């Protein structure tokens, strides 16, 4: 999947992979790749500013910690972030249902 297709959905995808617990930048990139079966083809460098954008919007909280002997910034979903993720899921379900209904080959009597 090309970066342009992911554009606009990256924030929601990041919120979804952090939902289960705090993660640092590279672990988030790995989780995105694993959960997409390797189909997400976006520059990994775009994930770090996206994390800061979500933190600026108070959907994530970030803090520095030492993991594996390396200084890393770990992100946790905030209450506002959980709410934003739930909203995004509902909107996505509605959107895909509508698109699927239109795209589905018409069946019925001629």
């Amino acid at each position, binding site marked *: 999947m090309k970066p342009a297709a992911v554009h606009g959905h990256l924030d929601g995808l990041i919120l979804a992979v952090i939902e289960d617990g705090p993660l640092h930048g*590279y672990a988030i990139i790995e989780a995105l790749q694993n959960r997409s079966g390797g189909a997400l083809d976006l*520059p990994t*460098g775009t994930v*770090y*500013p996206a994390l*800061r*954008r979500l933190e*600026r*919007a108070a959907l994530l909280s970030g803090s520095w910690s030492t993991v594996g002997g390396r200084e890393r910034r770990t992100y946790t979903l905030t209450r506002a972030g959980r709410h934003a993720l739930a909203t995004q899921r509902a909107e996505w379900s509605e959107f895909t249902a509508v698109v699927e209904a239109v795209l589905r080959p018409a069946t019925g009597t001629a």
Partner: protein
Amino acid sequence: MRTADPITSHVAALERALRGPQRTRRGMIAEARAGLMDAADAYRADGLPPEQAAARAVRDFGAVGEVAPSFQDELTARQGRHSALLFTLVFPAMLFGWDLLWSSGLVRRGFDPAAPGLVVALARLQDVVTALVGLAAIVLLVATFLRSVPPRRVTRAIGLTGTAGAVVCGGLAVAMNVAGGHSTAVLLGTNMAAVVAFAGSAAVLALIIWQSIRTLRVCSDAA
């Protein structure tokens, strides 16, 4: 001579391309560097030699020209937020500070009887302008929390608000003292509290203008 490894040179090139608050910039760069090293470690664990592993990590990360605009957007937004927070605090602080000073009796008004009406009108206008700029700063501060608002646009608005607020408030202060005639000179010559208040206000206005210029410069460098 040993050449710099791909991660170090890539991160250095990214850092050179960015403008904005030093602490946030360093934090973002440190985070990107740690991520690149993690990615290189993963490739090494898969059996790639170190140089190739680092080169693959850099390739996955994206070219500086490709990723720098998103990094810069965040730095621009942070610069705007810092400035908006400062303006939210200092404009109302100036307003309440002067009110407190007049009501405390530490500084007594000694307006020239020829122009008291004009001075009072200018003082009221000063209060209104200061309150409006403080209010605008609060609105713009809230806007920095919204992902839908383009960071450069809101940050430029914050820089312009600070500049306009400082220039108008400074201009009105000068006009008030000119309209007040010799009373300002008498006040400054006889009252130490007045000297401190005038110097403090001038320093605050200078700080606002300096912060506004920094903010507008980050916007123009990022353009």
